[in-house]
């Protein structure tokens, strides 16, 4: 267990596990694992569905655009609330224009172009870091 103090807020990581994302089956597993962690954190059905759907979007991007990568799932606890943090990492081509990638309807691969923006709206916190040629990291948190 890791307790970190940022100012007055102290956040505890209750559990963490990592999943490899290398195939379509792994995306299914990501959804199942994220759902289990959300249930363990006491999420309502709506909150479960939101974080599972956001996870599905980012996992699919990690696989399709990021050439595969990993997901770190953490169950968090803070004074008075619980949450789930998902960190997706890949060493793929990266995103040169994050603003554009986040724009609804933008896709470079024949999708609907709603994944990144949708995931951002489904999460309480959303961070994306990307370096062309190095890879991409997306972190989302959903609190109960």
């Amino acid at each position, binding site marked *: 267990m890791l307790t970190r103090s940022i100012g007055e807020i102290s956040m505890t990581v209750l559990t963490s596990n990592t999943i490899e994302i290398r195939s379509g089956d792994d995306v299914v597993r990501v959804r199942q694992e994220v759902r289990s962690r959300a249930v363990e954190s006491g999420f309502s059905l709506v909150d479960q*569905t939101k974080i599972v759907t956001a996870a599905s979007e980012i996992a*699919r991007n990690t696989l399709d655009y990021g050439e595969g990568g990993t997901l770190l799932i953490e169950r968090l606890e803070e004074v008075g609330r619980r949450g789930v943090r998902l960190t997706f990492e890949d060493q793929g081509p990266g995103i040169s224009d994050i603003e554009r990638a986040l724009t609804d309807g933008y896709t470079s691969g024949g999708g*609907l172009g709603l994944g990144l923006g*949708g995931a951002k*709206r489904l999460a309480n916190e959303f961070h994306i870091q990307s370096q062309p040629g190095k890879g991409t990291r997306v972190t989302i948190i959903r609190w109960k």
Partner: protein
Amino acid sequence: MPNNDKSLADLLATHEHEILQEWQGLLKASGALQTGRIKESELATQCRNFISQLRGALRPDGSLDKSSDGYASLKSMLGEVSRSRAIQGFTPSETASFVFSLKQPLFNAIDKGTRAADAKASYIWQTSLLVDELGLYTIEAYAKTREDIIARQTREIAELSTPVVKLWEGVLALPVIGTLDSERTQTVMENLLQSIVEQSAEIAIIDITGVPTVDTLTAQHLLKTVAAARLMGADCIISGIRPQIAQTMVHLGVELNVVSKANLADAFALALHRLKKAIVSVKQAPSGRQSRYVSPEDRGV
């Protein structure tokens, strides 16, 4: 190799009876027969065949001759043993212990039947190598069978869970159960389109009550299916979008632009309405209230 000692193959032949007795005893003690998945006589036959094939696969110095017919039939026999055990539900270690538990009896036979210490050590080493190799081969064959089983089941599930049901003349329903990942969606789409053509359907209801997550990829697959159905002359209704899924789709920004109903019953009612049919209650039915389909023509409408 000292000449006054027998070859390993001869040693196996001389001590075959003891080896078999001890081997079967060990297999029994380790619970090989307990679950009743395999009969004692069946196990005895497998052991006997194994030893006789093994004899045929050995070089005089006790190593395995991989180019021999004996080796080929030994492997095919082991493959068959592993396959049948995988299908019968044995665990990998239960399956591999069929071969590994032969080590002890072989060592004992070598100990008894060889005099020179260097021959003894050499035979024991050779035997250890060959049992390990055959044991590993067993595990590989086991894993291969399990993979085949899983692949077959995956294909079966993909087909089984996408049945197209005829609800009425011109009305089809497709109850989708499970995830709409790319490979399966293809099957779903093709089944539906084919049925639309075969039955000249006018309305197709896609029920997604059994779909746990609708992400943008699933939504895109649904949209494509609806568009293709339209080209075949059928209108789609989507039913069974549960409240939490509806909320999530709004956040994603996905619009299906297709008529949707809360459940399959409502979707069916709408379909009948569109086809100008109605379900009415029949009075004076023999046993209580009953519904019967009456076409507008029958009712003189």
